[in-house]
């Protein structure tokens, strides 16, 4: 699984190999949040394979998961 961080989340450490028991976005968020509690904040949105997911969504080997902090374009 490929995990990407954007914006201020880029400043943290990259993610290590995801344990096989992590099978959905919220489990992934909780696992990563052990080291990086800022990821637990509900303002951090998650995209799976280029689609922002509204809630818990299954993830599997080969997926690309992006963590997106609040946006600030324009």
């Amino acid at each position, binding site marked *: 699984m490929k995990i990407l961080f*954007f*914006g*201020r989340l*880029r400043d943290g450490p990259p993610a290590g190999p995801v344990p096989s028991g992590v099978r959905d976005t919220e489990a992934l968020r909780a696992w990563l949040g052990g080291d990086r509690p800022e990821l637990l904040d509900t303002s951090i949105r998650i*995209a799976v394979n*280029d689609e*922002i997911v509204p809630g818990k969504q299954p993830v599997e080997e080969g997926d690309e998961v*992006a963590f*997106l*902090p*609040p*946006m*600030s*374009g*324009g």
Partner: protein
Amino acid sequence: MIALRAEPFDASALLAEFTARAAGAGAIVSFTGLVRDENDGGAVLGLELDHHPRLTEQALHGVERDAVARFDLLDIAIVHRHGALAPGEPIVFVAAAAAHRRSAFDAVDYVMDRLKTDVPFWKRERRDDGAHWLEARAGDHEDRRRW
């Protein structure tokens, strides 16, 4: 038309092209957002605009589609920079052409509100006291809820 640019662009040249395409329009509104040279009392040395390699463009297309559906427009253009920007450089250019001015004003205003909160861009300002990530202000979220 939407475009995501890694290189600086000239807003007035974009307005010239846009106007040439907008035959029959009675009203053209443009917005240019620029890197300011100071913020919160500190000098701004530059701006880094992080984006997502695919989601950002998708989101820009979505905003364009929503504006076209919502307002009576002849044409719309959204051009957004990413990468490293110097003070004074344009960050974003939005233009709308319509028969009457209200639709053109509202469309550009709407697109700017959407860009502030709904499109994957993240700004980091380099100031003399270090680098600061910016987030949409509370006012930006209020503006977003107007529509």
